[in-house]
């Protein structure tokens, strides 16, 4: 691999370049779609896409931190399912949306805490611990819901998913807020930097006094917490919850994180990347619907795009280094 000749002016930081490349990929897809389909470029469609991407982003945000520590959280989808069902039931029986919010967030955090303890204290590989947790949570949700659906929530609560503020859907605004807060946390705060170090070089982290176990527990708890939050937005958007809503969500969430440039080996990754990854996946689905791609072909298209996106990203990364 030949090294590029040293540029005569200071180069942009590599992270920024990768981000720009990913954004470029999104723009290319967007451009293609607007050429191929007249309906793509409308304001309504783009707003829809952003809102759909926001739902995906909420799930993937905490997960990004987990992957940065070279871990994986397979239980995200199941956490959302359980949290949504519990919160929904609480809201229906008490009539108080705030209790539902508390329920969803506490369930999410509790699950995350348990995952974190299994990974850091019991040293169970994260893949396995969260896989086991996935089944346990799913079983609990099935038992709890017994095949029924909980639906019909107060109008105020539903604004969380359906409302608009200054013309922008509320989930999109929340996504922007989470992106800002999350990025500040991950890159500017001491804890965030420690988390990145744990992924990049666990030995160095330990030697420099980072309380690795506590940070790991924190990271998984955050993943669970954002899953709980995502559950609330789903609940509000769909105005219902059933036991199986989480099933199809986990792999797309992980895909969004990985497309966004976060490496499974840890130490590398940004929330902005995950946002772009979520946007990309949502654009693909949007495009397939608008272009009438037959149902049977959709997994293939999605699969190929995931591979292509990650490959391009890695290629760009390697050329620079």
């Amino acid at each position, binding site marked *: 691999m030949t090294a590029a000749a040293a540029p005569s002016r200071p180069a942009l930081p590599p992270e920024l370049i990768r981000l720009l490349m990913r954004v470029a990929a999104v723009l290319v897809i967007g451009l293609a779609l607007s050429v191929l389909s007249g*309906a793509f470029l409308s304001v*309504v469609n783009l707003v*829809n896409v952003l809102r759909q991407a926001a739902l995906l982003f909420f799930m993937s945000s905490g997960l990004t931190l987990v992957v940065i520590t070279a871990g994986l959280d397979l239980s995200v989808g199941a956490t959302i399912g359980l949290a949504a069902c519990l919160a929904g039931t609480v809201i229906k029986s008490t009539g108080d949306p705030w209790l539902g919010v508390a329920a969803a967030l506490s369930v999410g955090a509790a699950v995350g805490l348990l995952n974190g303890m299994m990974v850091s204290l019991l040293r169970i590989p994260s893949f396995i611990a969260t896989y086991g947790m996935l089944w346990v949570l799913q079983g609990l949700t*099935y038992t709890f819901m017994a*095949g029924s659906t909980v639906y019909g929530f107060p109008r105020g609560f539903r604004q969380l998913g359906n409302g608009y503020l200054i013309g922008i859907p509320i989930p999109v605004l929340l996504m922007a807020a989470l992106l800002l807060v999350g990025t500040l946390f991950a890159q500017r705060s001491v804890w965030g930097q420690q988390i990145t170090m744990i992924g990049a070089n666990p030995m160095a982290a330990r030697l420099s006094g980072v309380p690795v176990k506590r940070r790991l527990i924190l990271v998984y708890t955050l993943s669970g917490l954002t899953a709980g939050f995502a559950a609330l937005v789903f609940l509000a*958007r769909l105005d*219902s919850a059933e036991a199986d809503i989480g099933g199809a969500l986990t792999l797309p969430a992980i895909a969004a994180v990985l497309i966004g440039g976060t490496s499974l080996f840890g130490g590398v990754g940004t929330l902005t990347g995950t946002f772009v990854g979520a946007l990309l996946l949502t654009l693909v689905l949007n495009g397939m619907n608008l272009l009438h791609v037959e149902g049977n072909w959709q997994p293939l298209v999605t699969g190929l795009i995931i591979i292509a996106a990650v490959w391009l990203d890695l290629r760009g990364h390697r050329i620079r280094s």
Partner: protein
Amino acid sequence: MKRTALIAMALAMTAATAPRALADGETIAVLTKNQTNPFFQAERVGAAKAAADMHAKALQYVPTQPDSIPEQMSQIDDVVTKKPDAIVMVPVDYKAMIAGVQKINAANIPVVNVTDRSAGGDFVAFVGADDYSIAKATGEVLLKAMGGKGDVIIIEGVRGAATAQDRLRGFKDAIAEFPGAKLVDSQPGNYQRLQAMQVMENLLQSNPNVAGVMAANDAMAIGAMDALADANSKALIVGINGTKEAVDAIKAGKMLASGDYNGFVQGCIGTMIAIRYLRHEPVPKKVTQPSVVVEKSNLGPYDVPVDQRSCPTWDQVPQN
């Protein structure tokens, strides 16, 4: 004297413990497809109610992985090992499960086929509804309400599922009957509410003037309904299942109608047939639920949650 009494007692005890000829306490194994679809939950509730009404016991077997063919196969193996008195079964796949049915036949356990008609194997009876007819009837209700003209969108179920294919056919044939109506788009929602909502959102962009939406099940209909409401669309929407949530939506005028695809009744009747067969009472070979479309005018009986309904009595069961 004492000896005769002892012999008489012994004979009575043997008779009391003889397994097969009992008129009560039969074990019926009920196999359904998944835990996630409320339709099958309703079926399980119906089966349990019918069993309880007739003083028998229903044991439920559901794959842990939804719609898993190999898992249902394994459950058949394990059920056959336990030798229940009869089996009531919804095959996960109407072709792939034939081998499993043959295993049940080989073990001489009577089995009733419910919901999805198996393409092979010996059954005591089939209890089901005709997906095609229900979809067609529901589609016709929509098209009539549309005045017979306008753009129609179909939200399909899971590709490859027999129910989804038959319903799609039914919808399409209904549209074909009305020359003024046009099918502008047909995309899968995989029977999932969120997916249907997002698909509907997307399809509205290319078809803003859609007048009618046919969704292959209620969960998708409601998801699409929300997307339509967000876009202030005047499109009418129909679904299939007749769930309580759909009935509420019909009452509120947000949804037009839903095809009655009633898991509860099928579960009841399937189990009733199994038990009657064991008790040597006459049973029909096939029971097809009539195609009823639930609309505002007739939603009374559907407004009751499944747990509170009662099974139909035997004379109410259509004996065709």
